[in-house]
Each structure stands twice: as C-alpha cells, then as structure tokens.
C-alpha cells in the first residue's frame, strides 16, 4: 500500500539539500494523527541542508494535523495554506518555518503534467 507521507519524507531525506530552504534554519515536528495513533516526524533544516528523523529532538515549530490530510498535501491534492485557514493544521512556534516548508509540497498532479505540452515555454534556446 502506498504511503504518500512516507514517500514524501523519504524523498526529502534523499535530497539532503533543498535550495528553496536556503534561508531557513530550525526543526519542525509533524504530529500526524490517524488510525488511532500519532506519528512524529522531525525535519531539521540548516540553511537548506535537510535531515529527517523519528528521533525526538527539540522543535522550533510543531505542526499537528491529520495523516490523511498530510497524505493529500504530499500528493499535491490538498493545499496547506487553505487547510490551515480552515483550522485543519495547527502550527505552533516559528510560523516562518512551516510557511517555507509547505512550498515543498507538489502542485496538483494534473497542473504539473501540462508543463510539457505545446504552447508552453521552451526552456532551451
């Protein structure tokens, strides 16, 4: 069974360095609630260098949300900012970290697909 959340964090850990987070530093803790349990993921960012762990470390920003919602954000079918405005994500601590971090979620799969279609920008010149 696919687990988009695990996939997302695994991919993130594999990347190691994320230029998008170059100006961020701090630790995020995600408390993902679902199936009667809460899973904890820790993401530590040091100027774009990213490590992902389940080990307990002190967090600068704690983000509590549903596992099912996180799956959808990780798959690009839910938007984090809109979900937060609906009260589905309760971040505590350094808000800047989660606002930066949520930019790592992909866009809707269909919207990303049309990039290669005709009429779109040609990258190489």
């Amino acid at each position, binding site marked *: 069974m696919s687990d988009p959340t695990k996939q997302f964090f695994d991919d993130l850990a594999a990347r190691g360095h994320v*230029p*998008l987070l*170059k*100006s961020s530093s701090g630790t995020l803790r995600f408390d993902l609630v679902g199936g009667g349990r809460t899973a904890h993921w820790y993401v530590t960012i040091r100027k774009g260098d990213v490590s992902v762990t389940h080990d307990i470390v002190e967090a600068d920003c704690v983000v509590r949300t549903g596992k099912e919602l996180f799956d959808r954000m990780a798959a*690009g079918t839910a*938007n984090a*900012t*809109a979900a*937060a*405005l*609906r*009260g*589905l*994500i*309760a*971040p*505590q601590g350094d*808000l*800047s970290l989660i*606002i*930066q971090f949520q*930019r*790592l*979620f*992909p*866009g*809707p799969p*269909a*919207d*990303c697909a*049309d*990039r290669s279609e005709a*009429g*779109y*920008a*040609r*990258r190489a*010149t």
Partner: protein
Amino acid sequence: MSDDLVKILEGNTFVVSDARGDIEASLTDPTGLFSFDTRFLSRWVLTVDGQRLTALSTDDLQYFEARFFLVPGTGTVYVDAKLSVIRQRAVGDGFHEELTLLNHDENAVDLEVRVEAASDFADLFEVKDALQKKGAYYSRVEGDRLVLGYERETFNRETWVSATSACKVDESGLTFKAHVDPHGEWTTDLHVVTASVAWGETRDKPKYERHAKHARPNQERSLEKWVDDAPTLQCDWDWLKMIYTRSLIDLAALRFSPRTSGGLSLPAAGLPWFMTMFGRDSIFTSLQALPFTPELAATTLRELGERQGSRRDDFRDEDPGRILHEMRYGEMTAFEERPHSPYYGSVDATPLYVVLLDEYERWTGDAKLVRELEYEARAALAWIDDYANLMGDGYIWYQRRNEKTGLENQCWKDSWDSISYHDGTLPGFPRATCELQGYAYDAKVRGARLARLVWKDAAFADKLEKEAADLKRRFNRDFWVEEGGYFALARDTDGRRVDALASNNGHLLWSGIVDKSKAGSVARHLMGPRLYSGWGVRTLAEGEGRYNPIGYHVGTVWPFDNSIAAWGLRRYGFKEEAARIAAGILDAANFFAGRLPEAFGGYPRAITKYPVQYPTSCSPQAWSTGAPLLLLRTMLGLEPIDGHLIVDPVLPEGIGRLELLDIPGRWGRVDAFGRGRVDADKKPRERQHLGVLDHDKRPRPRGKKK
C-alpha cells in the same frame, strides 16, 4: 455616505463605524470590525436608557484611535444637555473602547447603559460581492464574557466581548446599571477580541490596557518615531511640507506586519480593503519610499521571497519562482472558493522583485540581504524565461489558467478593457503588454549587477547582460509604432502591435529599455496634449477608441503612474519634463489636502480647474501615498551612484528652495538641497499652484492680443 464613516486601523484589523461609533452592518454594507479579511462585529450599538445617541463631534486622534462625543437622543427632536457620553476607541487585535458618562446635573442619575453586539463573520469578498454564508452561528455567555462565533466544518472564528465593570451579559450584548453622582462620571472599558483569526491563532486578551496612552501600535516603532526617523523636509512652498507629512503618516498607517516578519512591516496596498500583502503594490510602494524608509523594502523582499511560488498550481496561477499577487485569510480563501492562499496572478511582480532588490542594495549597501535572497532572485529571473515566455519568443506574456476566479489582466492595468487597439477593439490572450518587457529588461540588467557584485558569478552576469541587450534590440523593433513615434501598449499573438498610445510609455523610460534615439519622441508624447492633462499623464491618450476621462485605466490620471513616468523622464535626461509632472501631481495633492487618491479624472486642467476624484472606496492607497515621495526624489535628482548620493535638482517653477535633510543610506545620512525659480512679483500665498503656469504661458496665437 462613506464620508460620514469613521475608520481606524492597525495592520489588517480595522473598524468602520458611523459618526456615533455605532456599527449596523448589512451583508453589503462595509461597516464593522474586520481582521484578517473577516468581519468580527457587524453590530455594535450603544444606548442609554434605551435611547440611541447623537454625535456632537468625532475626533480621529490617530489612524488607530478615535473619540466620539455624544449626547442622548437622536436627531433634532431632543438633546439632553444634562448628560454627555464619550467613547474612545483604539484598534488592535480587536478593539478597546473607553466609555464615559458625564452627569452635568446637580442630581445623581441612575441609567441603563447597553451595548448590543453581533457578528455575521462575513468574508471581505462576501461584503464586496454580497454572497450568502454556508456555516452556522452561535452566541453564548461564558462567565462575564459574550462569545460570538461562526463555524463551518473545521473553520471557526470567534469574537469575545467583555467589560471591566459589573454588567449583565446576555447573548446579544452587555447591560450596565450606571449610577452617576452629581457632576460626576461613570466609566467602563469594553474589550472586543478577535479570538481566532487564521492559522489556528487564538488570542485571549485585548492588546491595549486601560487608558489610551498605552494604545500604540507596533510598540517598538511608534508613529512619532516613524516620522522622526524619516528625512526632514524644508521648502518655501509650504504645501509640500503638508503633503510630505501626510504621506509619511499615511504610509505608517499602511504598514502591515505578516505574522512571519517578527514585527517588521511592509506596505499593504490600501486602506481599509487592501490591508494585505500585494506583490505589485508592496514592491512599487517600497521603491517609492526607498530614500525615506528603506526598511519597508527589506521586509517586502523577505516576506515575498518567503512565499515565492514553488510549483505549478493552475487554481492559484502559481509557478516556481513567481512572486505572489495577493494574500487573503478569510473563509472563501480557506474553502478554495477564491484562490488567494496566496494567488499568484500577476506577471510584473516577479521581475519587479529583482528590480527592488537591486535598487535596495544601491541605496543601503545591504549586500547581506542580497546574498540571503540569491536563490529567490535567481528563481524570479528564471521564471521570466521559463514560465512567462508563453509564446516562446522571449517576451513576458500572460494568460490566466484559473478561468473562473483568476485575473484576466495580470499587469497593473487590470480592468477588463484596459488593453486595447487604437480603434478600441480588445486583443485576445495571451497578451504581452509593453511595460512588462521593460521590467524584464531592467530585472536582467540589475540581476547582472548583483551577480557580478554580490554573488560573484560573472558567467551568469554575462548571460543576463546578453539577454537584456537582445531583448532591448527586439523590443525596440517589435513594439515601436513607427507612424506614431511611441511604443505600442502590447503585442498580440499574431505579432501585431496593440497600437493604442498609453501611459505605459513612462514605465518604459523608467526601465531603460527605450533606445536613446526614440526617447525624445516618447517624452514629447508623455508631455503632449493627448496624454498630459495639465495635472498628469493620462492612462490612455485622448483620441484612442476607449478613451474616457473617468474610465478606470482608460483615461484617468494615476499619481503612482506619474511618479514612475517622472523617474523615467529623469533617467533619459528630461529633467524639466519630470519637474512638470511633479508640479501637476503636487498641485493635485494640494487639492486633496495632501492625500492623493488612487486616480482622478483625465479632464484637461484648463477646463475643470480642479482634479476630479475617481469614485473609489479605498483611501489612502499605498502607491498614491508613495507618489509624492518618489517625486521628491525626482525633483532633487537623487541617485545612488558608486556608494555616493548624487544630487541634481531641477525644481518646478514656484518652488524656490527645497531641502531634504538626513537622507538615510549607505553613506549614513546626507542632506540634499535644491534651488529653483519663483515669480518674485507674487507673494508666497499667491503661488499656490505650481503647474498652472504652463497653460497660462503657452504662446498665444498672434493677432489676438488686445
């Protein structure tokens, strides 16, 4: 009418009430307490012994504070001079209201004081578009506090109302039994807290304690300090001092601190409906204010960078590298009935982001921020080529992907009919308006400077410079309307010129994309009778198919647009022309008591004698507030070059002496002085108008002299 309304605000929290301080809003009526794009109070009505009150006077003490002097009774029928009521209100995380009753009689009185409170929790978009709510309301008494709430699924907003004196709380308000001694007073404090606003934030107490001396917004940066820190202006044309002070105070009111900024502020777009982050407006206002309050630019760059697009999302018109257009926090955004979480549908904010970063460094020498934002600046530059280049021809194009709630025109002239051919017909999409190409050119040139100087990447700088030169060459060929001697408003998908003559030519001068050989002709058009009204440059020239002197982007004069045109004219050496633009806009500012509206009518000055305000509910508007600041810069010819501030003043006739002292920058603080010509025969008070002389002095046809 809106003129009788009293508005106070702090950040994106504001209160709009009638002259009595009461709020009685309907869904379409724009009064109430608003915060984070949601109305938290739609009813707030004070009665004494069941009677409404009458306003004797209202003081706007500060932009965040107002005082209402009231007497019981309504209208002209009956005024009880034995009793006065004073409400003093300060806004901030809700509001704080000091309510005082003064008994002028020799007998004690016992009164029933009641405050009715209710909220419809309307989204700002609902107030503007009169839409119906989908969730459920509740109202309950929790101890000595009234809680008003609204719930839709997990979306929850609450308003808490309480008082410092004993009172009876019910589900629709607070009732006090007030005993007031002879010549005595009775007082209580009312607290209204917007308890849950956005991002799960909750508040449990009002921002301000009793007595307004504590009621100061942005504690570390009070209004007095804000004005003190800005350069000091001295001028023999008195009105300029008034306009300058007004601009500084309004700019202070327009400051908005996103929750991620650590209390630092960027300019929001307009008051009260646009108190949020706008890419374009925040950038332009920061540019205009750079010589005065450079910290606004730094916060704008950081906060917009933090929210820079990172993925393809059609609903939000988002791409990697794109700078946001508008952020909103209300219910419709939350439920994705509107795309503002944030919405990315503008194509100018992204190149302008790079322009601001470079201009900021030139003024402040803050290379650290340029290093910090290297990734963001490179992503913005890449977006120009990779995502805005919709036709693959190297120009910036726009076409919304969100066809339901996205913006059709993604340039600053964003109304439906703003982009037209000379004959008035509208081009299809995508569209490539001319000023966008100028911004792209400037972004590349400035990006190259930053790459060479700060990022130490000469290869990237070379690449950008080559691209810029190529863009300039093609642009001067593809957009130039040979027979008219100006640049077309846009290019259509068939490669045709959208050939209307518009103010966008001023932006082109500012960007530097205009060939020197063409600049004279462009300047003549900007100052010619078709575009120049005597007050300023019209958005669209007289004689164009869609010209309308009171059409939003098709004939009105925009002060912001003119300040950019003046900067552009200076850039190409047209100093006198830039001074004439300043003269007209400053004259207009004088008519508007120092506060320039977003736009005013394009009627010729010789006909109307005064600028006709375009009807709009938003005032002050950030980039109109910034216009006089940029005009001060252009009049004095302030230019940071090689670490020094160059001063090269050319003043409009009528200003004899202009001094701007303590201009902050990489040089520390320096002073700039300008001397100009005045008509010595006229006393200072007779020289109220700077620009009108131009019309009087036009050569009259021979033979008509008496």
